[in-house]
Structure formats: C-alpha cells, structure tokens
C-alpha cells in the first residue's frame, strides 16, 4: 500500500499538468491540483488516502465521478472468469503433456517440445492474439473480432478466443516447468522404490511422480498471476472485453489518477495474496517445501 502510493507519487511528473497537456495555463493546473488534493504535502496526502481506504473509500474517478471501488467490483467478474477458465484449461492440458514428456524424456521429443514452447513464450501475447483473430475471426469467422455481450450463452462466443490464447501461453509455460520437475522427481530414490514395490500404474503416476512434481508448478502458477494480470490488460484491450485491465488502460489514457491508483493497489494485493495461497498449496502437496 505504501509502495503503490509512493511509486506513483515519487514518479517524476505531475498528474495535473499531464492531464491538462503541455500548453495548460498555470492557474488551471493549480486549480486541478487543489481539486486532486495534491497541493498539500505528500505525508498528509497519504494519511488522507489510507484513512479513506479503511472506510472502503478508494476515491472517485476524475472523469465520470464513478466510485473506484464500484468500478473494480463491476469489472472484476469478467477478468476473473476468463483468467480462471484459462488456468483451468491450461492445467488440464499441461499436466498430461508435461508428465508424458518428462517421463519418456526422449531427446527428440524434448527438443521439439522445448522449441515450440520457447517460441510461444518469446512471442508477445498481443501478436498471438492478432494471429488468432486473423485465423479464427477474419478467415473463418468462428469468433467475433472484438466486443462482448454479458449474457451467459452468448458470452462464450466472445470469450473462447481470448481464453484459448491465454491457455496456449500458460500451457507452454506450465508444461515446461512440470517437465523439468518430473525429470527431477524421476531421479529420486522413492520413485525407484515405487517401481520395485510394484505399485499400480495410476497410483504410481499420481502419488510418486505427479504429486511431488506439482509443488514447484503450483508455486510457479501463483507467481505467474502477476504476469497474467499484465497479459490480461493487453488481451482485454485487443478484444474490447470490459474487464478490469481495460479499465486500467482507459484510466491511464484519461489520466484518471485515483482510478489508476486504486486498480494498481488492487492488483498488488491480489498478486501477494495469490502467491501466498500458492505457497500454502505447495506445502500441502510436498511437505519438504519450506514456507
């Protein structure tokens, strides 16, 4: 909280003059500064802001006087839906891929797997999205180019392409990590014990291979949430989905300073919270992990 406040505040530049443009008159800038509460010293600004926060008040948008908290509440469900959907699908897809490739560990398969995933990881998500639009919306018209309708059956039509793109990126990252940790797990002694004891196949794969390999993967996914929120901003802008990411971009475009600060702080809290949960799950899966 302190950081999000001071990061914004320590940034050189003045929101008031940035908003009014370079040619603004000094009186106008001063007036706006007073309106924003920027004319008092930073410490007092911080106190005002924090005391507001404890009352559930994150400030009010400068552009349309909407409450920042309400905006976050309104836009969050969509973002959450599509992040959770893509994490879910990515998990379902990458667990078999990562385990299979890690278990066989055949040099040629690993080579192809690593090349494909590193190409996908090195490609910016907006470019993947553009290719997706080009193939599925322009040439095949299976998906609308952009837009969103928030009723249940129709929204899937708008959501499937962004979710698919997010999933693709996630699958390549998660399965890579899973592959590495399966290879590591395979060399552990308890795996050999499992083979010698003749544990049944499903039980062997689940308890001896997957469960210990899962801990680093879960930690990674939880740390990835931050990056994923960043990706969400870009994907929501491309597909014009009215989520929290697009709200942030719009707020930045219009120098809506309380809104930017509120969303930024929200993202920070969520990122820390999720990485904490990830550590907890990892501890449940593998007690050797230190909390």
């Amino acid at each position, binding site marked *: 909280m*302190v*950081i*999000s406040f001071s*990061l*914004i505040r*320590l*940034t*050189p*530049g*003045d*929101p008031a003059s*940035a908003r009014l443009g370079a040619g603004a008159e000094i009186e106008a800038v001063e007036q706006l500064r007073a309106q924003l509460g920027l004319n008092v010293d930073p410490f007092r600004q911080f106190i005002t802001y924090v005391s507001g926060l404890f009352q559930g008040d994150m400030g009010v948008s400068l552009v349309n006087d909407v409450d920042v908290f309400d905006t976050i509440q309104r836009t969050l469900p969509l973002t959450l839906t599509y992040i959770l959907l893509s994490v879910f699908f990515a998990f379902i897809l990458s667990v078999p891929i990562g385990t299979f490739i890690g278990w066989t560990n055949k040099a040629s398969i690993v080579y192809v797997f*690593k090349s494909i995933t*590193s*190409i996908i*990881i*090195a*490609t*910016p*998500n*907006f*470019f993947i999205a*553009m*290719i997706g*639009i*080009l193939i599925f919306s*322009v040439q095949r018209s299976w998906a609308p*180019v952009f837009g969103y309708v928030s009723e249940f059956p129709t929204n899937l039509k708008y959501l499937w392409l962004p979710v698919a793109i997010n999933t693709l990126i996630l699958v390549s990252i998660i399965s890579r990590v899973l592959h590495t940790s399966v290879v590591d797990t395979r060399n552990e002694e308890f795996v050999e014990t499992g083979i010698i004891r003749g544990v049944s196949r499903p039980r062997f794969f689940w308890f001896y291979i997957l469960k210990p390999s899962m801990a680093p993967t879960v930690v990674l996914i939880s740390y990835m949430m*931050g*990056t994923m*929120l*960043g*990706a969400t*901003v*870009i994907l929501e*802008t*491309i597909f014009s989905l009215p989520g929290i990411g697009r709200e*942030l*971009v719009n*707020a*930045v*475009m219009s*120098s*809506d*300073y309380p809104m*930017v*600060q509120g*969303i*930024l702080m929200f*993202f*920070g809290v969520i*990122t*820390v919270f999720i990485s904490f949960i990830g550590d907890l799950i990892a501890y449940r899966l593998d007690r050797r992990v230190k909390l």
Partner: protein
Amino acid sequence: MSNNRAFATNSSRKDRIKEWVARPGGSGIIVGITMFAMIVLAGIIHPFVSKYGPDEFAGDSLQPPSFAHPMGLDQLGRDVMTRVFAAVPSDLGIAFLGVSIPLITGTIIGIMLGIAQNKYFVTLVSSLIDGINAFPLLIVAIAMVAFLGPGLFNVVIILSLLSWARYARIARTRAVVVLQQNYIEAAKLMGYSKKRIVTKHVTPNVSSETLAYALSDFILVIIIVSGLSFLGFAARPPAAEWGAMIADGRTFIGQAWWLTIFPGVAICWSAISLSFIVEGLSRRDRGN
C-alpha cells in the same frame, strides 16, 4: 571433453572455434547470436540501402507484398520493410537501455546491501525491493505512464525505476554468498583495502550472475516495450515501432495481414534469438 581442451590450446584458431561450438549449447548460442546480429545489422544498414524513408510515401496504399516491396505497403503507402527495420533502434535500443541501466544500479545496490552493516538501511531497502517486486511489472509500468505521459524515453525511466529491484535481489543474495567464500577471507588476510575487495573480488562474481539474468530480462523488456507501444503508451503511431505498427495494422487486419504479421515476426525474431542464447548458455552451465 575436458581432456580435449588441454590440446585445444595448442591447436589453430579454427579448431578452437570448432571445439567451442561442440561444447554443450554451442550451436544454440551460435544460431542465437547470428539471428540477433542479423536484425541489428538490418537496423544499422537499412538507411543506406532502402529506397524509401520510414515515413515516406512509396506507392499506392495497402499493396500486398510484392517483389518491389517484400513486406507490402501500409495504409499510408509507406514501405513496411523499411519501417520494420527502422524500428530496430527504438525497440532494441530502448530495450537495451531499459536493461542496462537497472542492471548497473541494481547490481550496485544489491552489493551495497550485501556488505552493509547498518540494519535500518538494509531493512528499509529490502522492503522497498520486496514492495516493488510484489507488483506485476507491466501493470505498474502502465500505471506510471499515467503520471509521466507516454513516450519511449519515459519507458526507459519507468523501467529504470522498477527493474533495479529484481537485479538488486539477485545481486544481494549472490553478494552474501560470495562474501563467505575463502578467497574473500584470503584477500582480507592479505591486507587488501575494502575498496579493492569490493571492486576486484565481489563485484565480478556478483555481476556474472546479474548479467546472466539481464540476458533473459532483455526478452521480457522487448516484449514489454512493444506491449506498451501496442497500447499506445510508448511510441505513438506515426513512429516506426513494432508494437505501434501492430496496433496500427489491427484496424486493417481484415484486408492487409502484412501490416500486422511482419512487425510481429520481427519481435519474435529478436526474442527467440535471445532465448536461443539464454538456453545455450544455461545448457553450457549445466554441462549437458
């Protein structure tokens, strides 16, 4: 392999290069360096070779790729290939600045934290580092654009203000390890000054680690710079910049795929070439 190396020192230069490539990850490093050199070179020589300037009208608008214009023409009749190469300084150059400035400051701060005795200083700076690292980089960068205003130069400032924290964390961890090594103890016993120990013994051993991280960070920064441009927060549309060009081409994606694809391929090309180098170096490090 290690036996050969003893002989290799006596052999000719060509053999030594061959031997270097044959070591783990060698081919990947070579491919990566070649690919990266190609795009940098294209960026350097294109003003002398291409027939049009990046903002110059070169023919009817939205012409598909042809022999005269290998990457086609955009909506204002500008040559896309010229623009893709003209964007090299603003993309790779900005990314380079955005990596090297935090690399230097972050390493210095990290080493200072490693050797500092003052508890308050260490706690203060470490919590600042943790605080900055807690936020997703792209999100904070976008938020800071709101206060700095858009522009490529501002992106460098933002990256310098944010990225150092990641380098400092790595440098600090490494510095703490290095300071416990025997050679530091030996240097102390030999009566070297503190300044000499820090500059000649600690810094090289710490910076090798941060440099390695910088290389993989380069990929991330290229993608962030072009991503910010794509959103319209770094380079603005008339400028030749890959992200901005893709954003431009988005309007015409139904009619002119070449406006989007070629700048995107350029980003991928640079990012993939770097990831080849990173992967090659890490394989060499592990020795397989």
